[in-house]
């Protein structure tokens, strides 16, 4: 039963759809009608109508073919267009990549520059806190001059002190010698004769004078005594 139905189905399908679909079917039908027309024994009018009908179908086939060809051309051109756009976009992408890399390098450079500027500013702040170099140099020069002046004065005072010391030393040594001489004289005198009170007074005065002295007083008075 199933097999019979299958056969029926197949026969029906072949009958209905045997020619294919659309254009293919039209061509098949045309071919079949052409062979029928060639072999038909009908009247010339029928033949003519059949012939006209066939021409119509042929024209339909031709127009459909023309349409398909145009669509094919159009597709080809679309493809080209798309190819062009595709390469264009690719180029744009690579150039954008390059630009990005450039910009990144720029950023790195700018950051380095900024860092250097900030370091410079930080150091400049510290340097500003210290006084100006010219000022300091001037102060140093003034101080140097003052120092030299003061050392001059010191030298002078030292020289004066030395001189006075030497003079005074001379004076003292003279007094000592005189004292010695007087002592010796006194001793020799005492051995010979009695003591002279005047000389003993002189001796006391000399011994007193040599311990407590002031150079201004003694200079003329000692000479005075010696003369005596």
């Amino acid at each position, binding site marked *: 039963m199933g097999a019979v139905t299958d056969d029926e189905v197949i026969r029906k399908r072949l009958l209905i759809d045997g020619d294919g679909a659309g254009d293919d079917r039209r061509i098949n039908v045309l071919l079949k009608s052409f062979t029928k027309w060639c072999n038909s024994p009908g009247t010339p009018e029928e033949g003519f109508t059949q012939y006209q009908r066939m021409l119509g179908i042929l024209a339909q086939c031709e127009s459909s073919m023309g349409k398909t060809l145009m669509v094919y051309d159009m597709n080809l051109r679309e493809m080209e267009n798309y190819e062009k756009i595709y390469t264009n976009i690719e180029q744009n992408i690579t150039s954008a990549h390059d630009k990005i890399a450039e910009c990144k390098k720029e950023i790195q450079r700018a950051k380095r520059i900024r*860092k250097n500027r900030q370091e410079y500013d930080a*150091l400049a702040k510290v340097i500003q806190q210290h006084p100006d170099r010219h000022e300091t140099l001037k102060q140093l020069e003034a101080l140097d001059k003052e120092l030299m002046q003061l050392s001059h004065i010191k030298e002078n005072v030292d020289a004066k002190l030395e001189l006075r010391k030497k003079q005074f030393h001379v004076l003292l040594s003279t007094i000592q010698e005189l004292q010695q001489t007087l002592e010796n004289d006194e001793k020799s005198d005492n051995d010979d004769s009695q003591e002279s009170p005047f000389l003993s007074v002189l001796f006391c005065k000399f011994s007193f004078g040599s311990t407590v002295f002031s150079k201004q007083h003694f200079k003329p008075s000692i000479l005075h005594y010696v003369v005596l």
Partner: protein
Amino acid sequence: VEAAVGHGSKLDVCVLQLLHMSVFSQSFSPCGRYLAAGNNYGEIALFSLSAALSPDATVQSQKPVLTFTAHEGPVFTLISSDCHLLSAGNGEISAWSWTELIKKVTVSLNTQQPGKQHDLIIPEINAMIINPRDNSLVVGGGDNNVHILDLEHGVFKSVLQGHSDYIHCVSVREREADILSGSEDGAVRIWDSRMDQSVHCIEVYKYESCARPQYGKWISCVTTDSDWMLCGGGPSLSLWHLRSLSPTSIFPLTGCQRQAAFHQDMILAVGDGPFVSHCLLGGEVKAQIPCTPQSLNTLQLNTNSTEHRVLTAGGSSDHIEVFTNLSYRAFSLSF
């Protein structure tokens, strides 16, 4: 019931642990794809940056790929050399191979202890940095001295003595072969690494513009850019010109800064307060980017990789903040 109670208390312990966790140190791998972070329980966690930063990252990718216990005490400092991760905590320095860690093998290669081996008290190590000039490791810790370890031979070359209190932080000046150390005694000392002598000693708290007596005189962060130095802690964070040893800018940040870094034309600083401060060299604070932890201990920039250029900050929380764009927090990695 017992099983339920047992499970509950274990969960509570885990949650409590996470609550009290602090991240003390971070370091990026030489390839730039992994971040190692050390916490106060002695654990080091390895996070995969490529997984966390990929477009299809999930919550799982923000968890560590590997967590292991490296030390008994907290891991105070982590640093990466070309192929090793060095960690230090309470007195010993351990070396781990990065390739092994990435393969999840956690065997310590070498363990060193600075100072004399037979000391009873082993001081903690607070800071380490690698001196690229002579491939040595500069270590500063609780015994007031800076130790220098030769990385090629694994022996301690020299000891720099001069500080009178423990050392918080060390830094290396690339161009001049100098080592800088900041200590609890308030002094930043500059050492010549060739002569092993202290060249300068800057007592920051003695400068009126920087000093903040209410916080103390300790220096907790020192970092240098060869000509310039940033230091802060008790005194305010300040920028110093090293040639003239004078402070040029003081940054008006409240709280004590624990780590600072130079980045392009800015200065990044973290410390007390739940934010990362961006400052300009002139002394003004440009921005303060908020973060989740209440205070931050460590800040690191990933300079080892171009596609994972992130800034990470960790502090008194089990979260590590990740910044892909410096202006805002992108996401957090968690232990």
